[in-house]
């Protein structure tokens, strides 16, 4: 049994790796053909549009307030100062709390890690059940779930407050993790379902013939083959949960407020003049974690997306 599975597994791996980006066996053209100039010109132009805001954020965060008031937002700083960064991280005030973003950082970590793990675990099993073990009515639930993706979060706040209250979980970290799991479920389930559907069916059938059950197949066959889609799910969830403000502030208490709450507080509590440089530094600091996740795993992202979205 083991032999067949491994063999098939390798076959599937080979199939998946065909999706890898990169040159696929065509000879490169000369660098300065008119076609290349057009292609690169368009890409560079687009890149400029996407990079502009990041540039503005970084440049602004390194300027002092007087310079911001005088100069334009695109000019590089005349005198680089890291003070806004220090202030944003450790001393910007909201009300009486003058410890900047630092107090929220670990809370965000504490929220993001378990929420990401739980939501992915559940959604991957959902997707697997929907792809390989469909039972009567499964499509109906899945359809409701997909429609659920369109419901604005604001609409669901009140019912969820009530559900959590009845479960005694309101205000706790567990409650927040459940909320993130619920709202991550539609898209993640869709991706996992598509991914598992795209795996060669023979593989599944062979395992079944060998007598493997639901969980055995999931853990022994599906999981080892699913790294790309797990990376996609992880990126989507880390980004979504880390960036969440509404749930973090509505469903928890201040001890657990994530970093985005402090960001909102810093950005919105104007004391005197709006300190754009501190705002921008705070913005970059808050976005740093999902950005790093992207930079590190961006390659796998496209591969995973390819596997999760292409076949359906």
């Amino acid at each position, binding site marked *: 049994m083991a032999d067949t599975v491994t063999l098939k597994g390798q076959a599937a791996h080979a199939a998946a790796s065909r999706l890898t980006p990169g040159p696929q066996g065509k000879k490169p053209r000369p660098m300065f053909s008119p076609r290349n100039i057009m292609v690169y010109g368009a890409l560079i132009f687009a890149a400029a549009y*996407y990079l502009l805001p990041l540039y503005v*954020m970084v440049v602004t965060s390194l300027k002092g307030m007087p310079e911001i008031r005088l100069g334009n937002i695109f000019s590089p700083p005349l005198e680089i100062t890291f003070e806004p960064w220090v202030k944003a991280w450790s001393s910007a005030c909201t009300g009486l709390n003058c410890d900047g973003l630092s107090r929220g950082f670990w809370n965000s970590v504490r929220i993001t890690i378990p929420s990401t793990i739980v939501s992915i675990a559940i959604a991957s099993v959902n997707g697997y059940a929907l792809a390989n073990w469909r039972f009567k009515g499964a499509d109906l639930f899945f359809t409701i*779930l*997909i*429609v659920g993706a369109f*419901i604005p979060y604001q609409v669901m706040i009140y019912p969820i407050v009530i559900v959590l209250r009845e479960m005694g979980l309101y205000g706790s970290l567990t409650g927040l993790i459940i909320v993130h*799991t619920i709202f991550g479920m539609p898209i993640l389930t869709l991706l996992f379902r598509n991914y598992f559907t795209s795996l060669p069916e023979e593989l599944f059938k062979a395992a079944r013939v060998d007598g493997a059950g639901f969980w055995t197949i999931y853990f022994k066959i599906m999981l080892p083959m699913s790294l790309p889609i797990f990376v996609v799910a992880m990126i989507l969830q880390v980004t979504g949960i880390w*960036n969440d403000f509404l749930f973090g502030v509505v469903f928890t208490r201040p001890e657990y407020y994530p970093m985005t709450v402090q960001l909102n507080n810093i950005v919105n509590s104007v004391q005197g003049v709006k300190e754009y440089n501190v705002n921008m530094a705070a913005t970059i600091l808050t976005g740093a974690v999902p950005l790093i996740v992207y930079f590190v795993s961006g390659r796998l992202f496209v591969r995973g997306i390819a596997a999760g979205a292409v*076949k*359906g």
Partner: protein
Amino acid sequence: MTGQANAGRPNQLLRNLHSKIASIPMILTAVVIFLGGTLWTVFYSFTNSKLLPRLSFVGLDQYERLWAAPRWLISIQNLAIYGVFSLIFSLVIGFLLAALMDQKIRFENAFRTIFLYPFALSFIVTGLVWQWILNPEFGVQSVVRSLGWSSFTFDPLYNSNIVIYGILIAALWQGTGLVMCLMLAGLRGIDEDIWKAARVDGIPMWKTYVLIIIPMMRAVFITTLVIIASGIVRVYDLVVAQTSGGPGISSEVPAKYVYDYMFQAQNLGQGFAASTMMLITVAIIIVPWAYLEFGGRKRG
């Protein structure tokens, strides 16, 4: 295990049982939260609940008031404009970028990272940065003016007529990278032989894309559509961060109406009526399509 293998297939009940147990979280979420929450919302939209839900029915009063409220009408109109443009531009820009990226270019990783990074940033951050860039006193307008073109006016966030496009610019910046990724993945999934065949037949490139490649990318377009469209309906944070619905009420959106009336105005009934209208609209468009797409189809 072996016994079952000898029996051929595991028996029907057991097979369903495992799958069902594993799907309990999904079923609960779908039924209790999404369906239950929706029904609860619809039910209470016929009451005059204020700060707390209460069962005093007022018939369709909330709906009459809703459809007479100028702010709601503007919200709907804005959502329609934003939705149409956002859908079109996301798909077109996303596809074009993906097609460019698929030309076996150098530095693909760098370009992909550049197009995708905004997606890692929250709407609050996006709103803030674009508010800053579009600010007439500091941003694009003042820069162009200082270059000598002193009558240049570009202040979308302070002009009621075009403010929704100011929000659109930011939304596209944030979201098109993901669309590009999805499309690129779709393009990469297409067999190289198809391109070869098209080339042999002398079909021009653009025609190959439109007539052959895009129809083959159906699944990608569907996933993308779900992601873009669900984002459109839910648009809220971006508006709050960029304009707070202003100037005046000219960039209000339905989700914000719901939130404001539920919590700021402490009129749950009104908020629920607005939610219900949103839900009904979504349901009318999505349910038949989703069921056709995801339901009653064979595996693979």
